[in-house]
């Protein structure tokens, strides 16, 4: 008689019982869409008629005939290159201040973290639209200082800055990770260097920064990846247009307009694949240079 509960067979099946939901999800919601979007990026699929193979046309159009694409790329790269370093600097600075064993650390840490929790919500994007509007509090405060400013969100040169400041305002989550990292640095390092006569600044440069470098790398990569995909604030603040004059036309916003506004899904897929390559390029670049500035404990 065939033993259904044969010990060996049963134990080789069990792992797949646990994995079954994930395996289905991997095929249906990740793997298949991943490959079909690559295919669609070489077609002119418009959602109504079936996709036509057009070869590299979408990619060529993107790079040679679509000034909007370059504008979107420029806006997004500017956003990433300005907001991420600023955000990380604030995060590190506050983490250093909070790491001094002060009273009320838990409360301060919580308060600084709040913007990271709600910063991505529509409510905060709406708030930002008002705060950086013509008569918003930012301009009123600047007015007291004698600085006369137009509406930030309505002026092409300034609109992107309101979004950058929104991103920087959310430095709380990298700050919490920095705080955890600072706790890992052995106190003996500081004690030994004090005996050698090193000042605070020297200790920061020669102990804190090198010990923290793997965490700086981690925070940097995470923030770059998520900033490239930012969508909600730009959509809300510009009412979905990316205006004024495309100054907040984020990459993902333009992709959304193409794919789901004009139903040019082939073109949107090509944009998505370019985004994947752009993000891979930036993270790859950072990983390559990281060999020069990231120090892991076991290397001494």
């Amino acid at each position, binding site marked *: 008689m065939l033993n259904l509960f044969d010990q060996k067979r049963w134990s080789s099946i069990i*792992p797949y019982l646990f994995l079954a939901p994930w395996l289905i*999800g991997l095929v249906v919601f990740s793997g298949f869409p991943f490959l079909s979007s690559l295919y669609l990026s070489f077609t002119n699929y418009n959602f109504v008629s079936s996709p036509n193979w057009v070869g590299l046309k979408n990619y060529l159009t993107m790079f040679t005939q679509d000034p909007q694409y370059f504008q979107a790329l420029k806006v997004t790269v500017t956003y990433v290159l300005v907001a991420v370093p600023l955000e990380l600097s604030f995060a590190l600075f506050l983490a250093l201040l909070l790491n001094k064993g002060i009273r009320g650390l838990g409360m301060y840490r919580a308060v600084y973290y709040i913007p990271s929790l709600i910063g991505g919500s529509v409510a905060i994007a709406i708030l930002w639209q008002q705060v950086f509007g013509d008569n918003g509090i930012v301009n009123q405060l600047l007015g007291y200082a004698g600085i006369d400013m137009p509406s930030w969100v309505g002026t092409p040169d300034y609109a992107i800055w309101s979004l950058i400041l929104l991103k920087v305002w959310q430095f709380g989550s990298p700050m919490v990770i920095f705080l955890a990292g600072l706790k890992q640095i052995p106190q003996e390092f500081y004690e030994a260097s004090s005996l050698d006569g090193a000042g605070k600044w020297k200790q920061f440069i020669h102990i804190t920064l090198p010990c923290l470098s793997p965490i700086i790398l981690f925070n940097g990569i995470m923030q770059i990846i998520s900033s490239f995909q930012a969508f909600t604030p730009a959509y809300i603040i510009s009412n979905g247009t990316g205006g004024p004059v495309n100054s907040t036309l984020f990459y993902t916003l333009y992709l959304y307009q193409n794919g789901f506004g004009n139903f040019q899904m082939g073109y949107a897929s090509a944009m998505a694949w370019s985004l994947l390559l752009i993000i891979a390029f930036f993270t790859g670049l950072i990983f390559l240079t990281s060999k020069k500035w990231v120090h892991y404990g076991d290397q001494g």
Partner: protein
Amino acid sequence: MTSPFRFKKMILHAVILVGVIIMLYPILWMIISSFKPTQSILSDNSLWPKDLTLSNYIKGWKGTSGTTFATFYLNSFIMVGLAVIGNVLSCSLTAYAFARLEFKHKKIWFALMMMTMMIPMHVLIVPQYIIFNKLEWINTILPIVVPKFFAVDGFFIFLTIQFIRSLPRGLDEAATIDGCGPIAIYFRIILPLTVPAIVTTTIFTFIWTWNDFFSQLLYLSGVEKYTVTLALRMFTDAGGEAALGSLFAMSVLSIVPVFLIFFFFQRYIVEGIATSGMK
């Protein structure tokens, strides 16, 4: 304590407090503005307003075109509740298999799981939309909720794997000697011990799904299916300056659930971030 040392501490506290005020000022301003008569929101910027009113909340709650915020909140809570259940169940099962069981090509599967975490969602969004459209799931919460039951969020799998790995293997071995198989070990030992990981998954699934404007914008189109997030955005279209009061009032209400979760589970949130490096 010498006095220059004390002076330094005072400066330190002062700097940190100024930072706190700058961080919280926009949020406080929104909360207080939501109680001001609409016409004075932009003219009167003081944090101590002359007259307070609840009319913004009453008017705002009515929503637009006959659908009230009661519906929008119900929609949001159903969507978020199902997403949480799906994520917790599926990610926990997957994590247990990766952390404790042996199977063929485990390393390759694990690498695949890590890779899915790095793919920008925009790469998958067009084909996913086409699939959901074929299934006639557009304008329902199914495209947002169903994938969560299939552990598509590799991040939470990873988080739970790390947590299970920190539990002593001796527990599993003792249970095996007592005659437990992998399924019994999962339900009797691993599941109860991974409660902190489950709580972290719950909190972040709640907050991220609640705030995830992109998916909701993409898949929900009928006003009666709108979530709180979409309803807020609809307000910005309709009202202009006149509806600013209601807009602020409903914006404040929309972040209340996130705030409540934060205050009740603060410890889990901060520890979860510090150990796993969440966004």
